[in-house]
């Protein structure tokens, strides 16, 4: 084939994996591969959960993006302004233009605290924090160190959010560390969610609600946060309920990156890119593909999902160039560790069709599913090494393919 130009927007989890996989798939005279990102700081985002508790630090979870990309991948440090879909060009904010044969959207999400009245107003980073950004996680560490009891409210404003279990993990870790410091008795912990239970999927939701109750964490459901008074310490819902707080830990609304909204026809009303559930080709144009948090797919926004997608996406770009039918191979597979404190964690594994079930992963002799164990906690810690050294370089993990394994799972009647 003649030499193709592939441009990947975003050099985070999905963009890096895709660039490295494609670099291996195509020789230098077959394809030129470009990655665009606005900065050169690759954050291992699962680590952000541990920063507020002093269990890790930003130094340990941030590395240069360039160094994660294989030789021969061209990195542009620039902000994407918009895409000219008809001319097949990416326009950068610094005025440069990059033409493409195939475009890969891997620009993740944009946090939108400004969409909730008062959230980023007075009190922001003083009594109101988020651990979803490196700066926020670090500021919250200081606030937790100074915290000496009172009401700590954890709230996710609305779905979708990336790693939907992270706010639950945060409240479990808060419970644990406050007990260790001997101030749990004078702390009220509240978990307020817009969902009608602790989590989205029924079986996991029941397990997690049980854990919250065991740890004496109050669960407030169907709470759609509408406004925040960061000075008076009040979180109000649209239906008129109010929660008092001394410290509010929020997960702000998520939307797509702003350049998508500046490109007519490229995103839905929340800024996510309409994408085929199985092939990862967008419905925007046949030469535009997408993966990771930026898509509108009905599965979790998680690094594990992005990893399973990267494998199918690179295969399909190969097929697209060869003029072959795309593989309809993505099943929505997600796999998440849930830290529960006390050196333990839970593991859940699910896809578009099957909700998280008890059993073992990836087969009957693997890690326990939906049950707290030390082994899962060690798995979660080991994951950082796996991320930098196996996932980003695009290596296969032995025994773990993109499709969800059914062996090792106990099937249960789904409660309605």
């Amino acid at each position, binding site marked *: 084939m003649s030499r193709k130009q592939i441009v990947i927007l975003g050099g985070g989890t999905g963009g890096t994996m895709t660039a490295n996989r494609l670099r291996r798939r195509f020789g230098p005279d077959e394809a030129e591969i470009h990655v665009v990102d606005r900065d050169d700081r690759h954050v291992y985002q699962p680590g952000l959960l541990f920063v507020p508790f002093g269990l890790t630090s930003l130094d340990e979870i941030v590395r240069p993006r360039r160094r994660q990309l294989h030789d021969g991948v061209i990195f542009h440090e620039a902000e994407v302004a918009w895409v000219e879909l008809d001319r097949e060009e990416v326009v950068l904010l610094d005025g440069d233009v990059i033409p493409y044969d195939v475009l890969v959207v891997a620009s993740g999400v944009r946090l939108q605290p400004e969409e909730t009245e008062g959230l980023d107003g007075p009190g922001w980073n003083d009594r109101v924090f988020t651990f979803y950004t490196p700066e926020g996680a670090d500021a919250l560490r200081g606030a937790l160190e100074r915290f000496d009891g009172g009401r700590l409210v954890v709230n996710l404003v609305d*779905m*979708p959010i990336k790693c939907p279990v992270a706010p639950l993990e945060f409240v479990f870790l808060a419970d644990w560390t406050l007990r260790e410091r001997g101030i749990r008795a004078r702390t009220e912990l509240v978990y307020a969610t817009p*969902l009608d239970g602790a989590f989205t999927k029924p079986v996991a939701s029941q397990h997690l609600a049980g854990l919250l109750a065991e740890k004496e964490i109050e669960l407030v459901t169907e709470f759609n946060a509408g406004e925040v008074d960061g000075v008076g310490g009040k979180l109000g819902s649209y239906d008129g309920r109010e929660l008092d707080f001394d410290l509010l830990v929020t997960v702000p609304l998520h939307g797509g990156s702003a350049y998508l909204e500046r490109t007519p026809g490229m995103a839905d*009303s929340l800024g996510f890119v309409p994408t085929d559930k199985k092939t990862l080709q967008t419905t925007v144009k046949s030469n535009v593909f997408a993966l990771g948090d930026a898509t509108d797919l009905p599965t*979790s926004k998680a690094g594990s999902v992005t990893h399973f997608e990267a494998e199918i996406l690179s295969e399909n770009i190969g097929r697209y160039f060869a003029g072959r039918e795309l593989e309809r191979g993505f099943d929505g597979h997600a796999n998440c560790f849930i830290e529960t404190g006390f050196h333990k964690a839970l593991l859940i594994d699910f896809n578009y069709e099957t909700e998280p079930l008890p059993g073992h992963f990836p087969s009957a002799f693997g890690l326990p599913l939906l049950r707290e164990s030390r082994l899962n906690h060690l798995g979660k810690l080991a994951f950082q090494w796996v991320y930098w050294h196996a996932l980003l370089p695009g290596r296969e993990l032995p025994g773990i393919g993109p499709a969800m394994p059914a062996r090792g799972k106990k099937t249960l009647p789904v409660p309605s």
Partner: protein
Amino acid sequence: MTTTLSTDTVDVDGEGFLTNPEQWNEQIAETIAAENGIAELTDRHWLVVRFMRERFLGTGTAPSIRSLGKESGVPIKELYQLFPEGPAKLAAKIGGIPKPKGCI
């Protein structure tokens, strides 16, 4: 399970959401609204109910509260005034479509 609303017999789930959107009509909508504390459906109610219903019939999924606010043009605050019990759920119920599934 089935239930009788005004004069029609319709299929519903355990929470009273119609499982077969084709059995729906405007009278049924008014009956469900009344049962859920909305004595009269105003034009603004109807706008939201129709939007939810059309979106579901067109795409197979009903919008979340957030997309409903962005796409219907009715601000979220007003949506809650119209449907105090939770706009997405209640408008879906009145519009005769299944209970919206949350995101994952």
